[in-house]
């Protein structure tokens, strides 16, 4: 009898695509949950919403949201989204993708979109590795962490994503973990209402792959790590927010006002046309 009852958020999901492909204890489902919760609370016009994702476990998120969605090639969701947003600024374009997709293969697009301040919103699930391909080292893999491609421990320094985003010029930068569901939801709402390029990093458990290699075999263990290590410090210096086993600084880091690229562009276009009109008459 219970199964007949509909989940209050079910209407935002593509029934045909459910159940999602994500493992038990994976945080991607929580991110999706918070995202649809946010659009529900904002009563967003789904017709004006476009969700774009790249390649990786979380890349499937776009397909699960019952709205306009596009699943691009690896690393290119930001570039694709840029085209969408410029072609139709009315659309609210959100990217939900992973740390590898956005910051390794797609890193260049990220920093340039942030620099340009194009009005697209990026939600990054950071699970510290390439989950879908079986757990290889990635741009956020912690030093000394074990992955299939760092069997002797990782010797590359990971990106501090919030610092990178802030330095690149994002107008909104926040980091939460999948344990901070309320904050994450509120933060996503804020993100969706910001002008310009906004970014939220969501530290997310990957127990089946990353956890397995690093002594956190269950989602619960990883979530408990988040609980113990995370400290909310709003508007602290993102440069000092590197993620370590002992300390995960979460909170909002940047929230500034800056005219978006598309707005400037369309203002220019209007200006130019006025001039032309004046010349004609």
């Amino acid at each position, binding site marked *: 009898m219970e199964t007949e009852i509909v989940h209050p958020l079910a209407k935002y999901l*593509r029934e*045909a*695509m459910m159940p999602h492909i994500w493992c038990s204890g994976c945080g991607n489902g929580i991110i999706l949950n918070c995202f649809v919760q946010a659009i529900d609370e904002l009563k967003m016009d*789904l*017709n*004006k919403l*476009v969700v*774009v994702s790249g390649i990786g476990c979380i890349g*499937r998120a*776009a*397909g699960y949201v*019952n*709205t*306009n*969605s*596009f*699943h*691009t*090639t690896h690393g*290119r969701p930001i*570039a*694709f*989204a*840029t*085209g*969408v*947003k*410029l*072609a*139709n600024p*009315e*659309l609210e374009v959100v990217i939900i993708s992973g740390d590898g997709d956005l910051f390794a293969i797609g890193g*260049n*697009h990220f920093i*340039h979109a942030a620099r340009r301040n194009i009005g697209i919103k990026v939600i990054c699930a950071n699970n510290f590795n390439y989950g879908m391909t079986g757990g290889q080292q990635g741009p956020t893999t912690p030093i000394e962490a074990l992955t299939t491609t760092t069997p002797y421990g990782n010797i590359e320094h990971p990106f501090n994503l919030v610092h990178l985003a802030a330095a690149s010029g994002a107008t909104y930068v926040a980091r939460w973990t999948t344990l901070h569901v309320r904050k994450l939801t509120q933060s996503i709402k804020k993100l969706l209402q910001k002008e310009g390029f906004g970014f939220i990093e969501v530290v997310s458990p990957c127990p089946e792959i990353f956890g397995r290699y690093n002594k956190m075999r269950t989602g619960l263990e990883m979530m408990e790590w988040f609980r113990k290590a995370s400290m909310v410090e709003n508007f602290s210096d993102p440069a000092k927010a590197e993620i370590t086993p002992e300390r995960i600084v979460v909170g909002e880091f940047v929230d500034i006002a800056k005219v978006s690229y598309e707005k400037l*562009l369309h203002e*220019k*276009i209007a200006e*130019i*046309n006025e001039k*032309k009109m004046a010349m004609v008459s």
Partner: protein
Amino acid sequence: MSKKGLILEGSHFMNGDIACAEGAIAAGCRFFAGYPITPATEIAEHLAQRMPEIGGIYVQMEDEIASIAAVIGASYAGVKAMTATSGPGFSLMQENIGLAVMTEAPCVIVDVMRGGPSTGQPTLPGQQDVMQAKWGSHGDYEIIALAPSSVQEMFDLTIEAFNLSETYRVPAILLADEVVGHMWEKVVIPSIEKIKIMNRKKANVPPKAYAPFMPDDDLVPPMACFGEGYSFHATGLTHDEHGYPQTSSSEAQQKLVKRLCDKIRKNADKIIRVEEVMLDDADVVVVAYGIVARAALSAVRKARENGIKAGLLRPITLWPFPESYVAKIAKQAKAIVVPEMNCGQLVREVERAAKETPVAFLSKLGEEPHTPMEILEAIRRNC
């Protein structure tokens, strides 16, 4: 602003890149994303100036990968979009050309060919990307490529490329070369009414009933765009009519990939255009395209003056390849001469279609295109 005044109606003296840009505008292109590269840069520069004037978008991306991705995005947002590049950039675009094929995103890619491989000779012409245009992205697919041989054609075929791309929801490539791109000639731009414009088929069913990849009889699915009230999903993964991933279904794979090829193959006759000169009684037929075809034409004329029955077949559409036309002339001609600015690319297709008829290949690399004399020599040798 009124449709008039959008385009520069009348006769002009301009170079091929500019003509191409004006052709795009005439075709209704309102989005250009690109990255500077010789010899295609003037297209970007010109559109950077013109797009704002007509309410279109010009954006310079961080690289060619981003450019093509943005173009596909714009296309899905319902705007005709184009990017322009040359060999190196064209290589970077290949993966996402595949994405455009897979998601059936109408868009135009201009490749103003230069000497390769790699950085090669940026300021000299080449015809070395012909095969890449067809096979450059991984996986099986069909695609449309047009080869202009004059500045006027840079204008006309850009419009044609958009029309075909919109009609068949497939990326269309304008395979120009450095000479056509940089050459200054007279271009006649007709009034907007006289220009034939094709637009993609719009979704014509209620949103609930809409399946984004359910084809009509012509194998082309009507296209809804973001914000038009149709909530749909598109993906680079193999997918069903609803756009839902089907990563392990062989049936879905066959169905999809076959259709993507067939929608071009089965419509090839409607797509293909060639120019035929003095073929009726020709013993020797020169098959040439792009700038080379111009030298070939005068060579053929000179040959006739010297009493040789020569003719010219100029494929305007390189892909799908005008196989039947070659086959037809092969039956009557003793020999076929194929001059190309590469080590032999389209000539392979000609040989395949020509069957027993001997095909002489005339290669030229790294300098000006073939001269009429060189081609005439080849005609003489083969008659």
